């Protein structure tokens, strides 16, 4: 390569660039072809199947753990392929992103084409109308121009877009077919964008809230937070909620005794710290909407209040402790009390709360979900609770591996009663109970756009299936003496050819419409120039 030969070098460069552009154009054409879209649709369907047959992290993480335990050889391999998170997997995203790129590449140019053609008149009438799928010849005493004016008027009255030429009329109708088709496809793009919006800036959270308590909508205020990809802790709407009272009513008699009849949580909430609190009665299926965030009532239970005094006489525990329902019919609930700081040794209690305690064959059970006869039955332990190792522990489980059971007479406690622990270890008092609710907090800004997109897609779909795009052409000729119709008629002035064509008659019915159009034209011509018993030559060639 030398300085005095710049031209060929530049040329080569241009060729390479052209080649690249050519390849890109070729690739784009391939991607936006219907064939590729079909293959991608298949792949999308195929790729979804493992998501329904294998347990998924986002839906049932416990089932995934069970699967790992049951298939120790296979599960890690499947896990590497994202088989337990199919709908968040990169390969799944690759398929639908390619599909939607293909869709956009196909639909957008069509939308521009439609916009251009909307302003244009129908095309010229073809020369040989009898070659079209539907065609009919009529004769009329009216002259050709008169017949064409009549036909044009009739078609315009039926909301056809018409165009008049030399000896012909062409008419078109049904642009809504293409409009519907495009609306459907563009709405699908909108649906994807809405889902993406929700996944990026939405979040889900859970909070168990005991009556009388308040929580703030923040990463620390929530028990569980599943943020979207672009969400950080500070982005959460800063509302707070106080649970004043939870009310549950149950069917008290009959075969449905114990069935819930009403749940209501009397809340107070504000939209930001320091703002005035407003009341709200939260019920199932009636979420609280605050600042675009929806708060659902998804569960409830009891939180017995315990007070623990240790061997030194210090009050080391005094709070309501949420117990988790083990069954719904009587709301028998289980829970633990952890007092790691008690002296001389840490204390732990595990037991059940019985809203309506009854003895069945010497065992305790709860006969009704409301707290009509509340009792708590506890087993007491002393020792090391294992809470100083830095390992996070569930508040609902007591690790008794380094503890020993204390000899306490197993008597169920009524509110106000206490158990005195042996060896001067202190005392636990069951002071009463409060109720708790479990709240699901969801923020999905894509939800409303998704609904609108879905409705638009459905409307577009129905429109494109129900409307057919069709063209009608009419030619009128001065009847000549050797025409067979002219010979048959006393005074025909014109022979009118009518032809119809449809591009998209999915639902059928164009034959009927065409026949009706011809009938109307016949009637219109008769009104212009009454003919006695004018015959119609069908499909004359």
């Amino acid at each position: 390569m030398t300085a005095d030969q710049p031209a060929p070098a530049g040329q080569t460069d241009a060729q390479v660039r052209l080649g690249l552009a050519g390849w890109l154009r070729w690739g784009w054409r391939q991607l936006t072809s219907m064939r590729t879209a079909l293959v991608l649709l298949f792949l999308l369907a195929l790729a979804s199947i493992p998501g329904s047959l294998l347990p998924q992290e986002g839906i049932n993480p416990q089932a995934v753990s069970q699967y790992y335990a049951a298939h120790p050889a296979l599960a890690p391999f499947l896990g590497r392929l994202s088989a337990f998170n199919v709908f968040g997997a990169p390969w799944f995203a690759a398929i639908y992103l390619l599909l939607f790129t293909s869709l956009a590449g196909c639909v957008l140019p069509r939308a521009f084409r439609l916009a251009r053609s909307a302003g244009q008149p129908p095309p010229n009438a073809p020369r040989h109308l009898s070659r079209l799928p539907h065609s009919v010849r009529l004769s009329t005493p009216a002259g050709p121009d008169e017949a064409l004016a009549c036909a044009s008027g009739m078609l315009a009255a039926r909301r056809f877009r018409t165009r008049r030429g030399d000896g012909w009329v062409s008419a078109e109708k049904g642009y809504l077919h293409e409009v519907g088709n495009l609306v459907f496809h563009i709405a699908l793009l909108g649906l994807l964008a809405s889902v993406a919006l929700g996944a990026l800036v939405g979040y889900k959270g859970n909070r168990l809230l005991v009556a009388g308590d308040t929580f703030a909508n923040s990463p620390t205020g929530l028990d569980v937070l599943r943020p979207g990809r672009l969400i950080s802790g500070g982005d959460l709407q800063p509302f707070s909620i106080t649970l004043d009272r939870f009310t549950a009513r149950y069917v008290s008699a009959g075969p449905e005794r114990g069935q819930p009849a009403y749940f209501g949580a009397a809340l107070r909430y504000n939209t930001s710290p320091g703002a005035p609190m407003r009341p709200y009665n939260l019920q199932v299926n009636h979420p609280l909407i605050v600042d675009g965030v929806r708060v659902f009532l998804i569960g409830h239970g009891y939180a017995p209040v315990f007070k623990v005094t240790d061997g030194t006489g210090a009050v080391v525990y005094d709070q309501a402790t949420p117990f988790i329902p083990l069954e719904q019919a009587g709301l028998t609930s289980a829970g633990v009390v952890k007092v790691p700081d008690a002296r001389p040794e840490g204390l732990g209690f595990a037991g059940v709360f019985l809203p309506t305690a009854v003895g069945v064959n010497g065992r305790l059970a709860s006969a009704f979900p409301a707290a009509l006869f509340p009792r708590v039955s506890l087993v007491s332990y002393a020792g090391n609770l294992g809470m100083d190792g830095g390992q996070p522990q569930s508040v609902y489980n007591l690790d008794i591996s380094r503890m020993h059971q204390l000899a306490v007479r197993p008597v169920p406690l009524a509110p106000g009663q206490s158990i005195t622990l042996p060896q001067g270890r202190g005392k636990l008092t069951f002071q009463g109970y409060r109720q708790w609710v479990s709240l699901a907090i969801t923020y999905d800004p894509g939800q409303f756009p998704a609904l609108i997109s879905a409705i638009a897609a459905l409307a577009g779909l129905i429109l494109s299936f129900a409307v057919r795009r069709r063209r009608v052409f009419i030619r009128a000729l001065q009847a000549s003496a050797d025409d067979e119709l002219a010979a048959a008629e006393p005074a025909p002035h014109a022979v009118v050819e009518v032809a119809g064509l449809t591009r998209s008659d999915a639902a059928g019915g164009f034959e009927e419409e065409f026949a009706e159009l011809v009938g109307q034209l016949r009637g219109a011509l008769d009104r212009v120039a009454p003919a006695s018993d004018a015959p119609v030559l069908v499909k004359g060639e």
Partner: protein
Amino acid sequence: MVGSQLANASNFTLDLAIAVYAVAMLGYALDLMVRGQARVAGMAARGAGREGGEPAGEPVPAEALVAAAAPGGLAGPASAGGMSPADLAAFGAEPAEPSELADLAGGGTDAGPPAGLSPGSPDPAATSRWPGSRWLRRAFALTCAGLVLQLAAMVLRGIAEHRLPWGNMFEFIVAISCAAVLALVGAAVRFRSYYMGLFVLLPVVVALGVDVTIVYTAAGPLVPALQSYWLGVHVTAMIIAMGMFIFGAVVTVLYLLAERSERRAAAAGGAGPGGTGGILALLPRAQALDRLAYRAVLFAFPAWTFGVIAGAIWADHAWGRYWGWDPKETWSFITWVVYASFLHARATAGWRGRRAAVIQLAGFACVLFNLVGINLWVAGLHSYAGLH
């Protein structure tokens, strides 16, 4: 209790409906037999007639039927002359079906001239909405009677339970088989596809038979999760869509058989459409069957789409999210995608016809798997089958 008496009456009525359907199937079979014999006789007669210069054996030009059906007494000397589809290609037109009307009408003409081989003059019976043949008329009347009985059985059960009678798998199968018969009757009246009777009633009777014997669940209250008016919206849409999908799948199976027979006939040197004999010769051409199946999907697909959207709205109200990839949701999505593929395949050169038909059957397989497989083998939020 009145409720249990009503439920018993409902069961009895349903059994009766199944019996009536079975008799109707017999009628359709008899009709095919009579027409098959008439066709053989007609072939012999045509051989004789041709010598006498009769115009018999020519297909009715569709234009003649159009003229006969048109208001204003349009009628005229019908001259034979099919148009060549090649002429239309330039306009990007759908393949026209000059012989479809004649084909469809042929199934209903009296004395049973075989499909596409009606006499050469416009026959009033050929354009009539109702079936022409005696056995076909009887079988169709029985089908309608069975449908009324089945609807009555559903209404009785609904009254007995004070709710919509589609809350468990037994009731759901009754409802979708009813929707399939509704699709059969609707398409018969709209597109004159009376010939489909035997082929649609066969799976319906088998499904109902299995349903009342194995799947049966006694009348009872709805599980709390289903106590919502969205049950009426979401599940009803799914039922209607599934009925149409069943109809479309049955027509498509016939299409694939007819298409194969036509291909073989063409390869064997042009015995003509349906020239291979058997039941297929009594059915319309493959192209007409293809269009009928397509129309079924065109109706079912928006209904399915609506059902999925309604389900998403319900899920949002009930579970706080509109889409969560629950197994049932996933399979309704897969079904939607496969049927969308079918609609696209039908508009793509090289995929039209046999391949598109296979895709449609794959979509129907997804519908079936979602109904049976997911209900029985996969646990999810939609576990309402009521089977133990």
